């Protein structure tokens, strides 16, 4: 327990050493989390758009159907 206390005290520099390490951990963790979320969000958006594409093609085929009717009339 005493060794832990002296470890945390860092020879009197604990107030400088620990904030330095804590800040590093917080900043790097924030960068990783933001990057993972950005990658997931963008890739999900892309996947959704690509799923919609066949639908669009079908609509285009559907819109091609009325044309013979027009020619007929």
């Amino acid at each position: 327990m005493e060794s832990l206390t002296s470890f945390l005290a860092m020879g009197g520099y604990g107030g400088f050493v620990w904030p330095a390490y804590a800040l590093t951990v917080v900043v790097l963790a924030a960068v990783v989390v933001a990057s993972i979320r950005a990658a997931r969000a963008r890739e999900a958006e892309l996947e959704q758009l690509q799923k919609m594409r066949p639908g669009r093609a079908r609509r285009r085929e559907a819109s091609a159907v009325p044309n013979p009717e027009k020619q007929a009339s």
Partner: protein
Amino acid sequence: MHRFANPARFMRIAALVHPWAVGVAILALGAGLWFGLIGSPADYQQGESVRIMYIHVPAAWMGLFCYVSMAVCSAMALIWKHPLADLLARATAPVGAAFTFICLVTGALWGKPMWGTWWVWDARLTSMLILLFLYLGYMALADAFDDPQRGQKAAAILALVGVVNVPIIKYSVDWWNTLHQPASVMKMGGPSIDKTMMVPLMLMAVGFHAFWLVVLILRTRAEIAAAKVRTLRMAQVHAAGQGEQA
């Protein structure tokens, strides 16, 4: 689809490299923390405060490393119009900014007990602060235009102009009088610090580079997906416009 040929290859390589980069980052940073905080002795002059060095110095190296990579990618984007180079430069910028910020704050936390001040406006510290502003300016400029390609071009030019700051940072401790100590690792005649301190320093440096690679891959994936989304949306608008005309 040939426009995506290069990004497709990047995605394949990235998928192979990514788990290894994650593993190296975790192992090197874990070992670096252990050696830095427990497995290395206190400095005979600076006492335990020297442990700040194990993040401050590698973070400073990363700040410069990321900037040079960003500038090289920007040059490739401007000269050869390489579609991936712009995305890589964009992906690197926030990592470099984060490491430069870490370097500045840990430097202040180290300077207070050792120099008696959080900050001085000397050449090394000021040029490092300018590096942070260059990163922030690059990121702001890249997103400042409706047309992403114009923003990217302007940001790439800023990145290249800002390269003059890199040698100024490196040699500032030799050219001007400063509180900041000169280099003790990357210098002529080999490093002048003890092996017990070199181990955590190098482990943290390796860990930070692996961290950069992990984030670079994630952010480039996001940029590639965003570019494809933009292309698809434009194709949709185009198709809708043609549909109305017909």
